[in-house]
């Protein structure tokens, strides 16, 4: 579409240039200018204006749309895993359970730990901060989690002091974070020099170049 309009405007510009030169070249010779080049000139000029006016808002005025924006953190921040007090659940992700505890994933942030010893009165007891996290699985007292592309193993025997005991780099290839998964629409293009992507947040984007 863009290529067609560029070609069209190039053709029109050429036509306009030809007519103008013809006009200027003819001027000194005769004042009775042929009507055909004049009409052509007017028409092509008008068309050129139309084509250009269609282009102007895209190039000069920002095209504002809503979409997603990557959340960047430094590698040190991305690997900072710690347990803290319970907090609000904002964007629920996956669910996991190993009775009597339930783990509710805060999409891209970590897991809320819920004590469900009494199912009629579940209550939050901790939040484990795991940047970029979506999934967990538990064996014995060890919790496996994806953490900004890596696979980490956490000792959760003491929920007040969760300890990272193992890290395997590149569980998922980083290309996965080059675009938001399960999403259709505009998003801000990824700039890997800005850091590691741990998630995507809704944002108002100016003239976004990326879409899926």
């Amino acid at each position, binding site marked *: 579409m863009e290529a067609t309009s560029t070609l069209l405007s190039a053709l029109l510009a050429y036509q306009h240039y030809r007519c103008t030169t013809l006009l200027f070249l003819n001027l000194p010779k005769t004042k009775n200018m042929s009507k055909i080049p004049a009409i052509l000139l007017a028409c092509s000029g008008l068309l050129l204006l139309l084509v250009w006016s269609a282009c102007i808002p895209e190039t000069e005025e920002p095209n504002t749309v809503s979409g997603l924006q990557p959340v960047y953190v430094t590698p040190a921040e991305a690997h900072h895993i710690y347990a803290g007090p*319970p*907090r*609000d*659940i*904002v*964007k*629920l992700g*996956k*669910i*996991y*359970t*190993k*009775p009597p505890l*339930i*783990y*509710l994933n805060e999409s891209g942030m970590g897991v809320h730990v*819920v004590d*469900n010893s009494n*199912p*009629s*009165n*579940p*209550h*939050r007891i901790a939040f484990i901060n795991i940047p970029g996290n*979506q*999934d*967990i*699985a*538990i*064996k*014995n*007292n*060890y919790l*496996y989690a*994806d953490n900004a592309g890596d*696979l980490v*193993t956490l*000792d959760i025997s003491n929920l007040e002091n969760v300890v990272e*005991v*193992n890290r*395997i780099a590149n*569980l*998922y*290839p980083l290309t*996965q974070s080059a675009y938001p*998964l*399960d*999403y*259709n629409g505009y998003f801000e293009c990824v700039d890997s020099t800005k850091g590691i992507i741990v998630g995507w947040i809704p944002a108002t984007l100016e003239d976004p170049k990326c879409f899926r």
Partner: protein
Amino acid sequence: MNKIYFHIWAICCLCFLAASCQKDSASESPNHIGEGGSMARFTIVNNYLYSVDNTTLHIYNISQANQPVWAANVDIGRGIETIFSYNNYLFIGSTDGMYIYDISNPTNPANGISFEHATSCDPVVANDSLAFITLRGGGDCNSFVESGLYIVDITNINNPQEIYYQYMYSPYGLGYDNQLLFVCEGSHGLSVFDYTDPQNLIEVEHITDINTRDVIPQDGNLLVVGPEALYQYSYANPDSIYQISTLQYDL
């Protein structure tokens, strides 16, 4: 007198044996592994952790739980979304189908049998004869297909056969237990079906006043999560499913 000492000694030995046996059985029981919802990308089967990204199955040996060791990668396809394990099989949900892998050899999954359908979002759960799949069309799933619930007969694992389809407005995660199938329907609540006859599902309950995303049914207690709260229901008696609690997300 010696006899008494022998008895005491024998009793001590028995106690010690019993204690050590108890410990052994505890560490060997499957209860030491947790359970995820149907949207999970991680699952543990015995000594292996299986994880799927968009295209690939990653396998880690976790015999030493505190020290996973990468074991293998397997290319699956495109648009991989979920993984579920049952006995010696992995059921992998993708945007264009379900893949079944035999993991009798845990690090060398065999026979990527596929059941294909139109593009959509689709978690899958299964037992030894049936696979339950939901498809959700619409914007965020790259899809315009009609949403619904599929039941696939996998008695012959090499030849999965679709035996049931039912339209659903916006199905998400699902789970089964004890002849009951629980299907999340987003803002349309939660449906509970009796699948004793899988070709003729009977809806036993439709809870409409909650917004739902995924479920974990476990021993008569159902965990239901949505964007606003965690709900728990008792299904110990299928004829009388009732709510136990609600955990609101705002503290």
